[in-house]
C-alpha cells in the first residue's frame, strides 16, 4: 500500500492513451488524490508513440518523479523508449497483442486489453481497459468507474455505455498472475477536486474577469485558450475570433479593449515576435492589453511540442523603443486562474500591456487543483470614468502617472490616441520637454509594483542558499528540495516585470547564494536580475535547454556542483 504512485502510459498517438490517462486522473481526483500528468508528443500528427505519465498522491505534487512505478504499453515503442524511467522494482504491463521483448530484469506481464475490448464490442476501448486495469491494481472500486462511464456517455447511445460497462467487468474479472498488492493506493481524503490544464485555467480566469473578446491565431501550446473561450464566450455574449495572423489578433484586441471590452489574445514564441509592434502601440496609447505567452522551444519554429522558458528576454526587453509592461508568471494551474484575473485588473489599473507568461508544461499538464474561490468582487477597472469633460486629457500628467480614461461613446470625452509621441490631449507633439515628461509619466506608472512582495518563499531556515525559479519549474524545485530533506529555502517569482526590486534586494542581501533555475540557454532570469540589480557574484544559475522539463534529481545533481 502506498500513498503515491507514478504511472507511465504509452501508445500510438491518436488511439486514446492520453485521454485514458486523463480519465484515470479525473477518477483519482474525485477520490481525493492529487494528480499531475505530463504528456509527450509524437512528431507525427497521427501515429507515432506518445505517452502520458501521471503521478497520484495524497500530497499536492506538481511534477513527475524521475522514476515510475508502472509502465503500461499499448505499442511496441513505449517500453524500450521509457524503460530507463522505470523504478528498479517497477512493473511493466503490456497489451497481450504486443511481442514480449522480455524485459527480464523487471516484473512484467501481458494484459488482454485489445482482446477484452474486442470481446466487449470494439477495440477502441482498449485504452479504457488499460485504465481499468490500472484502476484495479490501485484498488479503485469498480463502481466508481461505472459511475463515471455512465456520466461520460450520458448523451451517447446506450450501446456505448453497455459496451464500456462490459469491458470494465471483463477487466475486473480477469485474473492477474502477479504480485501487486503493494501498489494499492490509499489515503485519499475523499474530497472531489477538478482536474485542469493551465490553458483552461487561464481561459476560465479570463471569463471570470469579465473578458468578453478574444482574437487569436492557433499555435501550440496556446490554442486551448482560444478553443475554450471560442466555446464559452458566445454563451456569455462575447466573441472569440480566429483571425488572419497574430498581428491582426493583437491589434483587434487593442481595438476591443480601447472600446471598453476586456480582451485577450494568446500565443507562443513565433506569434509573440509578430506582436511586438502591437504591444508597443498598446503601451504608447496606454490601452490595457492582456496577452498570454505560452512558451515552447525556440528559436524560430524550434520544437513546437517541447518545453522551454526562453521568451523572457524578448518579453522583458523586446520591441523597439522603451515602454512599460507587466509580466506575470504563474507557477501552478491555480495561479493561472488567479493571475489571469489579476492581469486584467493590472492592465486596467496601469493602462498598459500585461503578459501572462506560461510554458508548455504549465499550459498543457493536467493537474488536480484545489477549489478555485468564487469572489463577488474581483474587478478593478482603474481610473475608468463614465463622464468626459471639455478638452479631455487622456494623457494628463498626474501624481501617479496614470490618467483618467473614458471609453468611446462617452459624451464629452472625445479625444485622440496615437502611437506617435503626443501631448496630454493625445495629439502628436514633437516638443522635447513634453517628450521627456511623457516618458517619465509612462514609466512612473508601474513603479509602485517594484515594491510589492512578489517572490513566494518557502523557508526551511536550514542554509544560506535560496533556490529561485518561476513557472512550471516551481513544482519540480519544491519536490527536489523536499527529496533533499528540506535543506534549502526556495521560492518562485510571480511578477517578472517590473521586478519586485525591494524584495529581491532584501533576499540578495540576506542569502549568501541565490541559485536561479530555469529552462533556457542563457539563464535569462538570472541575467535580467543581475542587469537590473547587480549582485552578479551572489547569483548562479541552473539551466536546461534540451526541450524537456527538469526532473527533481537533475536539479539536485546540478545543485551538488554549485553548493
Amino acid at each position: 500500500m502506498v500513498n503515491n504512485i507514478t504511472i507511465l502510459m504509452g501508445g500510438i498517438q491518436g488511439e486514446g492513451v492520453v485521454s485514458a490517462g486523463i480519465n484515470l486522473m479525473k477518477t483519482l481526483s474525485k477520490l481525493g488524490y492529487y494528480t499531475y500528468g505530463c504528456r509527450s508528443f509524437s512528431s507525427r500528427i497521427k501515429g507515432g508513440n506518445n505517452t502520458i505519465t501521471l503521478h497520484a498522491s495524497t500530497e499536492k505534487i506538481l511534477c513527475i518523479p524521475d522514476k515510475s512505478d508502472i509502465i503500461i504499453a499499448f505499442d511496441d515503442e513505449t517500453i524500450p523508449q521509457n524503460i530507463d524511467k522505470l523504478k528498479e522494482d517497477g512493473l511493466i504491463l503490456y497489451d497481450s497483442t504486443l511481442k514480449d521483448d522480455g524485459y527480464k530484469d523487471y516484473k512484467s506481464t501481458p494484459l488482454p486489453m485489445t482482446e477484452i475490448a474486442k470481446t466487449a464490442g470494439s477495440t477502441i476501448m482498449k485504452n479504457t481497459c488499460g485504465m481499468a486495469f490500472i484502476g484495479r491494481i490501485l484498488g479503485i472500486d469498480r463502481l466508481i468507474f461505472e459511475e463515471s462511464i455512465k456520466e461520460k456517455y450520458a448523451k451517447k447511445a446506450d450501446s456505448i455505455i453497455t459496451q464500456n460497462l462490459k469491458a470494465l467487468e471483463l477487466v475486473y474479472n480477469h485474473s492477474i498472475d502477479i504480485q501487486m498488492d503493494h501498489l494499492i493506493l490509499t489515503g485519499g481524503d475523499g474530497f472531489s477536486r477538478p482536474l485542469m490544464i493551465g490553458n483552461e485555467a487561464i481561459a476560465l480566469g479570463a471569463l471570470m474577469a469579465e473578458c468578453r473578446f478574444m482574437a487569436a491565431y492557433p499555435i501550440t501550446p496556446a490554442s486551448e485558450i482560444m478553443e475554450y473561450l471560442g466555446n464559452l464566450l458566445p454563451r456569455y455574449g462575447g466573441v472569440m475570433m480566429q483571425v488572419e495572423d497574430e498581428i491582426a489578433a493583437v491589434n483587434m484586441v487593442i481595438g476591443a479593449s480601447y472600446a471598453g471590452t476586456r480582451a485577450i489574445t494568446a500565443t507562443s514564441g513565433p506569434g509573440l515576435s509578430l506582436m511586438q509592434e502591437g504591444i508597443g502601440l498598446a503601451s504608447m496609447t496606454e490601452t490595457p492589453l492582456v496577452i498570454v505567452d505560452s512558451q515552447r522551444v525556440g528559436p524560430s519554429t524550434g520544437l513546437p511540442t517541447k518545453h522551454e522558458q526562453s521568451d523572457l528576454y524578448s518579453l522583458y526587453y523586446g520591441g523597439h523603443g522603451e515602454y512599460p509592461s507587466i509580466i506575470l508568471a504563474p507557477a501552478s494551474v491555480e495561479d493561472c486562474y488567479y493571475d489571469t484575473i489579476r492581469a486584467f485588473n493590472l492592465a486596467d489599473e496601469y493602462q498598459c500591456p500585461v503578459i501572462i507568461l506560461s510554458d508548455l508544461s504549465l499550459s498543457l499538464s493536467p493537474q488536480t487543483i484545489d477549489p478555485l474561490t468564487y469572489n463577488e468582487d474581483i474587478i478593478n477597472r482603474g481610473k475608468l470614468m463614465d463622464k468626459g469633460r471639455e478638452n479631455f486629457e487622456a494623457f494628463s500628467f498626474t501624481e501617479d502617472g496614470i490618467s483618467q480614461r473614458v471609453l468611446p461613446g462617452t459624451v464629452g470625452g472625445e479625444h485622440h490616441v496615437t502611437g506617435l509621441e503626443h501631448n496630454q490631449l493625445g495629439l502628436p507633439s514633437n516638443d522635447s520637454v513634453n517628450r521627456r515628461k511623457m516618458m517619465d509619466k509612462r514609466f512612473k506608472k508601474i513603479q509602485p509594483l517594484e515594491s510589492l512582495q512578489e517572490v513566494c518563499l518557502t523557508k526551511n531556515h536550514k542554509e544560506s542558499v535560496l533556490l529561485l525559479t518561476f513557472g512550471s519549474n516551481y513544482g519540480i524545485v519544491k519536490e527536489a528540495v523536499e527529496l533533499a530533506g528540506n535543506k534549502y529555502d526556495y521560492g518562485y517569482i510571480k511578477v517578472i516585470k517590473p521586478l519586485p526590486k525591494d524584495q529581491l534586494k532584501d533576499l540578495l542581501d540576506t542569502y549568501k547564494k541565490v541559485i536561479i533555475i530555469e529552462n533556457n540557454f542563457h539563464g535569462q532570469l538570472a541575467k535580467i536580475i543581475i542587469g537590473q540589480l547587480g549582485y552578479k557574484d551572489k547569483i548562479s544559475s541552473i539551466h536546461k535547454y534540451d526541450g524537456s522539463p527538469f526532473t527533481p534529481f537533475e536539479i539536485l545533481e546540478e545543485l551538488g556542483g554549485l553548493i
Partner: protein
Amino acid sequence: MSATKDYSNNVNPTWCPGCGHFSILRALQIAASRLEIPKESLVSVSGIGCSGRLSGYMSSYGFHGIHGRSLPIAQGIKLSNKDLTVVASGGDGDGFAIGLSHTLHAIRRNIDMTYVVMNNQVYGLTKGHTSPLSDVGFVTKSTPYGAIDSPIRPGILTLSSGATFFAQGFSAFQEELVEIIIKAIQHKGFSLVNVFSPCVTYNKVNTYQWFRHQLVNLQEDENYNPNDLQGAFNTLLNTNGLCTGLVYQRVDSEGRSETNDTPLSKLDLKITEEEFNRLMNAFK
C-alpha cells in the same frame, strides 16, 4: 442638425497645400454632420502615412494606430461596441502593401463599418516612394528606373474578396464624395471607399488634371446597376478602375452580427456563483 465644424478639432493639418487628403477629411466631417452622428459615437481609426493623420483632425474619438493595422483595430472597436460608428482610413500603402491581408480579411468578415482608402498611388509621408498602386513606369526615389510590377487593382480585388459595398470618389468631387461616404456609412456591413486623392508633392503623374480627364462618373450612366456584381466587375475592367460613384452594393448584406443586441462593452458581465460552479464541475 450638427454643423460640419463640430467634427473638426481645429488642429491645422500637416498636409501640403493642395493635398487631396484635405477634401477627404472635410467630406467625412460633412457626412458625419448630415448623418447627425453624435461626436461621441464616431470613432475615426487611421493608419500611418500622411493620410493617417486624418484621425488627429477630427473632434470625435480617434485612434491613430500603426502602419497597416487600422482595420484590425477598427474591427476590434466595432465588435466591442456596436453602437459606435467606426470609420477607418489610411493610405494606399497602408491598406494595400503592409496591410493588404487585413484589408481582404476585413472585407470577408463584413463587419458593419467603413474603410476609406486615401489613394494617391505613392508613399507621401516617406517623401516619395512607389506604392503597390503606382502605375508601371512610375519613377520614385525607390524606383528610379520606373516601377516594374503591375499595380494592384483595388476595385477588382475588393469585389473578389466578397465585398458587399465598394465605391470610388475623387478629392476634387467633394459633393459626390460626401454622398458616397454617407452611403458607405449607412451600408449594413463592411464598406470600402477608394478615393483618388492626389499627392501634389510626390505624384506628378496622377494629378488632379489627369484624373479629371480619366475618370468616368458612374452616376451619370442611367443604366448602371450597382447591385449587379458581374456588371461591376466588367465596369472596373473596362474603365481600368478609373471610375467614381457607387460601384457595387449587395442589397441583402446585413453585416456580421454577433449574438447580442447589447454592445459587448455594455453587457452585464457578472457570472453568478452558481454558474461558476457549473463551469467548474465540467472539470471533474
